[in-house]
């Protein structure tokens, strides 16, 4: 049986539904030493901000059962270096590029999105709305429907590429935020970002991360992520990129059945640098074994 792994994300065609998640794959250079990036559906690059950022003090990663906490703090070389040094290289790898964009203010987001779109170096924008909104006293953009809608509306005005809004799971009803993003003009939704967590270091009796809290990712969050994809898929009619704890082709199938069109793989890259191509191969075998010809056949079948 031949299996069709391609995905059509509203016109943007992907070879397969598996892309490395933002922040877990840099700008692609490091893992390109392990395999050719054109085996991936797309690459979602590290959150890019207007100015370069050093991020939070270290320690900024730590392990927990079935997952990890990170408080990288959006460390990145800044828009200008990303456009001149990172994206041109990545473009030559023959793989669609999603640029994950972060900011402190609506204006920041708009500037970055505008320039990325004008550069012609990216195929889609992923808006990371889990960042604290400095104008609103540090509450994340992504936890309040009207704030989120406002942000998406403004970004939409300058965004000429498919616009994916990456939702925060640290909310009471994620479907409300999904609706807000959709009505603001999103072309698709990515979910989930990390859950806020903390670990205490018993030796120092203080939080293990210098930033105190960090984002929980990895298998530990998969059930929450699958539930959220399911809830959003029932209420919003936009392509969904699902993620959270994906480690295997079977995990991908769970997300697709819950309503995702494509997926991102984050933490699993750290456990296994070959995780992404392995997961593509596993998904293919799963589909062959189950007689599933293409992803649409099972997309949202659990709804």
């Amino acid at each position, binding site marked *: 049986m031949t299996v069709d792994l391609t995905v059509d994300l509203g016109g943007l065609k992907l070879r397969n539904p598996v892309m490395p998640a933002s*922040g*877990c*794959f*840099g700008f692609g*250079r*490091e*893992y390109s*030493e392990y395999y050719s990036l054109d085996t991936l559906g797309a690459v979602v690059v*590290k959150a890019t901000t207007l100015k370069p950022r*050093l*991020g939070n003090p*270290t*320690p*900024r*990663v*730590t*392990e927990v*059962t*079935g*997952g*990890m906490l*990170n408080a*990288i703090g959006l*460390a*990145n070389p800044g828009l200008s270096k990303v456009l001149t040094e990172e994206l041109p290289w990545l473009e030559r790898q023959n793989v669609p590029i999603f640029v994950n964009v972060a900011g402190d203010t609506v204006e920041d987001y708009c500037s970055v999105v505008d320039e990325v779109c004008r550069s012609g170096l990216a195929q889609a924008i992923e808006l990371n709305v889990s960042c604290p909104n400095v104008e609103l006293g540090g509450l994340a953009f992504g936890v309040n429907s009207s704030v989120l809608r406002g942000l998406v509306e403004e970004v939409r005005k300058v965004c000429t590429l498919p616009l994916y809004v990456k939702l925060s799971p640290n909310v009471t009803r994620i479907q409300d935020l999904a609706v807000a993003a959709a009505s603001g003009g999103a072309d698709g939704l990515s979910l989930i970002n990390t859950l806020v967590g903390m670990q205490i270091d018993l030796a120092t009796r203080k939080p293990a991360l210098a930033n105190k809290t960090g984002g929980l990712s*990895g*298998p530990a969050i998969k059930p929450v992520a699958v539930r959220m994809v399911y809830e959003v898929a029932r209420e919003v009619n936009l392509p969904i990129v699902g993620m959270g704890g994906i480690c295997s082709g079977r995990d991908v199938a769970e997300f697709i059945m819950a309503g995702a069109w494509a997926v991102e793989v984050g*933490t*699993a*890259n*750290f*456990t*296994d*640098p070959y995780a992404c191509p392995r997961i593509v191969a596993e998904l293919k075998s799963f589909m062959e074994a189950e007689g599933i010809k293409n992803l649409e056949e099972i997309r949202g079948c659990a709804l």
Partner: protein
Amino acid sequence: MLVKESKQLTRDVFALTLEGQFDYDKVTAGRFVHVLIEDGKAHPLRRPISIASCDSHAKTLTLVYRVVGDGTLWLSKRIRGDTVSLLGPLGKGFVAPHKPGKVLIVGGGVGVPPLFQLAKELVQENFELDIVLGFRSQGDVFWTEEFAQFGRVTVCTEDGSLGEKGFVTAVIDVTNDWTTLYSCGPKAMLKALRNHFAGSTIQGYVSLEERMACGVGACWGCTCLDPSGSLAKRICKEGPVFSWEEVSL
């Protein structure tokens, strides 16, 4: 790789010798491997461990580590024939001295192991070595005799139970004519060493530690700053070995 031998060196330090396929050609002293714990399910993050010794002819690799938590505890229970998954060699190791002349090597605790491979390599290149190894106490001392084949070894312990009493700086005379200093150990020791040599022309290198996720430079989890504090360096990629000029300690 396959476990060839696991040997307990002290109360909590173990030497694990692995054999089998590995990128031996790319091993240089100071580089590290990223070790998978079990199947990675409960422990998704690998553990960075320096290469203590490497024999590309015998196709063996030795890691020396202290048991401090779940991962190293698991590692200490591996027996001959078990499989351990390694990623590597990773990072940038020690670079050879730029100038000829005597070399000073200073290790503290489990900072000692990577210096063994370093000493081996430097002796092959005919450098003369002075080696200072610091431990907490007599019971924590390991591999000092192994180091003796490479140069003059001074051992010190914090409590004086073996060798000189005190920190490594207490036994290092800055007026000596070393051209290059290589160090690995607790940050406090690395800092003290640099201060100790303040004003000297010696070229100093440190091997740094930080909590790591990817180990390959992709996650920016393990950064340190340059002396100006305005540029981040990834310890797993640009390091773990840095010259004194490159990083703020």
